[in-house]
């Protein structure tokens, strides 16, 4: 990027004949080195000064330092976690790990849903129906111009307006909607399910191999063998067969109202639901615009040309339009995914226990502010870097190959 503009003085045509670095102020290279040393020196000095202050302050105020607290029993209760947790036994370290998992749970689900909803909106904005396109436009405008925090508080308020467990909505057998969240039945997980899952993984690999073979055959003979029957067999039939061979165990755990709350089944808590809903609704308004401009960026001539060489419209979309649109869409989309992840830190305002919320409770109970914040920063930097890395890899894969 920075290479886009090259100082002509440095271009080979005009470069001065190579000579040693002269210690004179008129030599630009010498000047540059002096400047850099000065700037770096100043910054190092400032950092050194701050570190000195901090260690003096910590000592003077008798505040404990170090990460030893991670190994101490936490004692803080945690509302929802993906792994087992007992405040009496488990440590602050595990509490923070739960926070991290909770953050990831919101981020992953949020990214998927926001992409779907944003794409729907983006397409709706291009609809020929005036009402649909106007509605989508109004949605985008309104949602973007109101702070996310306010929206989260609002969604949380809405979800709390649901009826109490006793009078909960009961749209499907085993599904309950109340102000305690959404309850739904889960299949009791047993050994054969793992085997079926393994079979599914094999099936995916098989399908990928077959579709590659099909593509090669198409190139050679011009006729593409059918892919979907094989895919169906490998992705659905094979895992079912494995599961059936192992006795086909199937038991559903139904939620039931017992005492105060539902027991059994799985729960989506109102905090999680409000946070995910808020993030999806908000981020989708940005994704919609990205998708829209991505689609508009592909000239209509591409559709027409695809049709002219006799391709079906679904093939044109898949093979011609989408790859081009994606090239425009992916980079800004990456930033939206990063934003969604970073914005999930607002969980702290509505009581979802993400990594920021647990770290802030931890730093409050232990008094160790620096360590707590350092933990948050490391987590987010790691997440940001992995998302950037993944999306860059994907972007490079779909990038135009220039021959």
């Amino acid at each position, binding site marked *: *990027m*920075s290479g*886009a*503009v*090259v*100082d002509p*003085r440095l271009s080979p045509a005009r470069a001065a004949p190579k000579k040693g670095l002269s210690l004179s102020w008129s030599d*630009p290279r010498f000047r*540059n080195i002096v*400047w*850099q040393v000065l*700037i*770096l020196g100043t*910054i190092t000095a400032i950092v050194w000064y701050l570190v000195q*202050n*901090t260690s*003096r*302050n*910590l000592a*003077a105020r008798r505040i404990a330092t170090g990460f030893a607290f991670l190994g101490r029993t936490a004692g803080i209760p945690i509302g929802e976690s993906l792994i087992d947790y007992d405040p009496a036994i488990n440590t602050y370290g595990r509490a923070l790990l739960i926070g991290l998992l909770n953050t990831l749970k919101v981020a992953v689900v949020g990214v998927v849903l926001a992409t779907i909803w944003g794409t729907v909106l983006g397409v709706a904005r291009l609809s*020929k*129906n*005036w*009402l*649909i*396109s106007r*509605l989508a436009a109004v949605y985008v*405008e309104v949602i*973007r*111009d*109101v*702070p996310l*925090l*306010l929206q989260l508080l*609002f969604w949380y*308020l809405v979800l709390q307006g649901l009826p109490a467990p006793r009078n909960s909505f009961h749209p499907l057998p085993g599904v309950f909607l109340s102000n305690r969240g959404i309850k739904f039945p889960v299949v009791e997980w047993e050994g054969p399910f793992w085997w079926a899952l393994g079979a599914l993984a094999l099936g995916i690999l098989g399908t990928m191999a077959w579709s590659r073979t099909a593509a090669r055959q198409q190139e050679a003979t011009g006729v593409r063998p059918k892919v979907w029957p094989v895919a169906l067999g490998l992705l659905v039939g094979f895992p079912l067969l494995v599961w059936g061979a192992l006795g086909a165990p199937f038991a559903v755990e139904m939620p039931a109202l017992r005492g105060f709350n539902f027991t059994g089944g799985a729960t989506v808590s109102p905090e999680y639901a409000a946070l995910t809903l808020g993030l999806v609704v908000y981020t989708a308004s*940005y994704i919609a*615009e*990205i998708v*829209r*401009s991505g689609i508009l960026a592909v000239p209509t001539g591409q559709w027409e040309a695809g049709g002219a060489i006799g391709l079906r419209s679904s093939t044109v979309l898949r093979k011609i339009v989408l790859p081009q649109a994606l090239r425009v869409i992916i*980079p*800004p989309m990456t*930033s*939206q995914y990063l*934003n969604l992840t*970073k914005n999930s*830190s*607002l969980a*702290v*305002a509505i009581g979802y226990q993400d990594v*920021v919320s647990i770290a802030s409770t931890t730093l409050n109970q232990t008094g160790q*502010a620096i360590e707590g*914040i350092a933990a*948050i*920063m490391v987590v*987010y*930097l790691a997440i*940001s*870097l992995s998302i950037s890395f993944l999306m860059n890899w994907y972007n490079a894969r779909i990038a135009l190959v220039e021959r």
Partner: protein
Amino acid sequence: MSHSTTRTTAALGEAAHDPVPAIAGIPAAPIAAERARPAAGPFAPVAWARANLFNGWLSTAVTLALIYFIARWAIGFFDWAVLHAVWSVPQTDAGPDPSACRDAKGVGACWAMIGDKYRFILFGRYAYEEQWRPAIVIALFIGLYAISAMRRFWRKELLLIWIVALTAIGVLMWGGVGGLAFVPQDSWGGLPITLILSTFGLAFAFPLAVVVALGRRSTELPAVRMLCVLYVELIRGVPLITLLFMASVMFPLFMPEGFNPDKLLRAQVAIILFAGAYLAEVVRGGLQALPKGQYEAADALGLSYWKKTGLIILPQALRLVIPPLVNTFIGFFKDTSLVLIIGIFDLLLAGKVAITDPVWQAYSTELYLVLAVVYFAFCYVMSRYSRGLEQEFRRTARR
């Protein structure tokens, strides 16, 4: 020349939404322009409706369903917000008597809560008798935005206007001179805090951003470039909340003993650092979008780096980045609401504290609606403006 300028805008478009689409919006081409206008005539509306609402049975079904839902919702909302709403409640010696609101709960809105608390929501804990001062400050901010938006004022004098206005705002808020009573920062609150945090944030982050953007593009100072990259990526990699937490609980530990900058100031510094990183990317987009010929021409004239940058590059690049800059500003404006989490009385927290009052505890919906309208009003006007400007730039570039 005309060819290269066209490329400029195209490149800027990309560069601008690549680094900060979070805040910078994608230029929105008006939908209406793409649609063929119906032929004028006595039956134009009918023809238009047939073309745009009822072409085909699916479209008709969707239109009718949408009209039904919108109408139902609108009527319900009207009933709640206007027809059955409680606009005021009687005042008693013990304060307002909310029984009318309590009776209307669930049926009608309780705007009486806003009527009782609007001054607290707008101005927070600012001394009650002196609240005309933050009111003027709000007006000053709006005036400042309006003047900055007018292209006829895009001259060097604008900088002067900003300095004068921001100074006046400081004097009005603090007081302590010319017979104005001193009001410490801790008791500032409400909308002025939101405006101050975002506007001062922009004013101070902007120069920082220009320096960082130049540093990041420097080919001759690799160490400086690394430093700038590190700063930008580090700040953009973490949520604003982390920086605010840092400002709130960590920053005091960094400072020498006895030096305790105020919490508001610390939050302001965090927002400036945050804004600086995002703005730097916006400015870098502008620098990148400038045609190479401009750099070469400046070099051909034998200008030094600073002359080249100050006279040729920056004036053009900064002009180009105004639309994404406004979008970034909208982002900060919304993001200042996060200071609620560290207990600074911005508009949102002032509102939330207002409903902590036992009398008004159950009326969050009304409060959130009013706050949303305030935020929306500011952001909508700004985003409209930036979009208009963007289109204008594109038009002039095509010419």
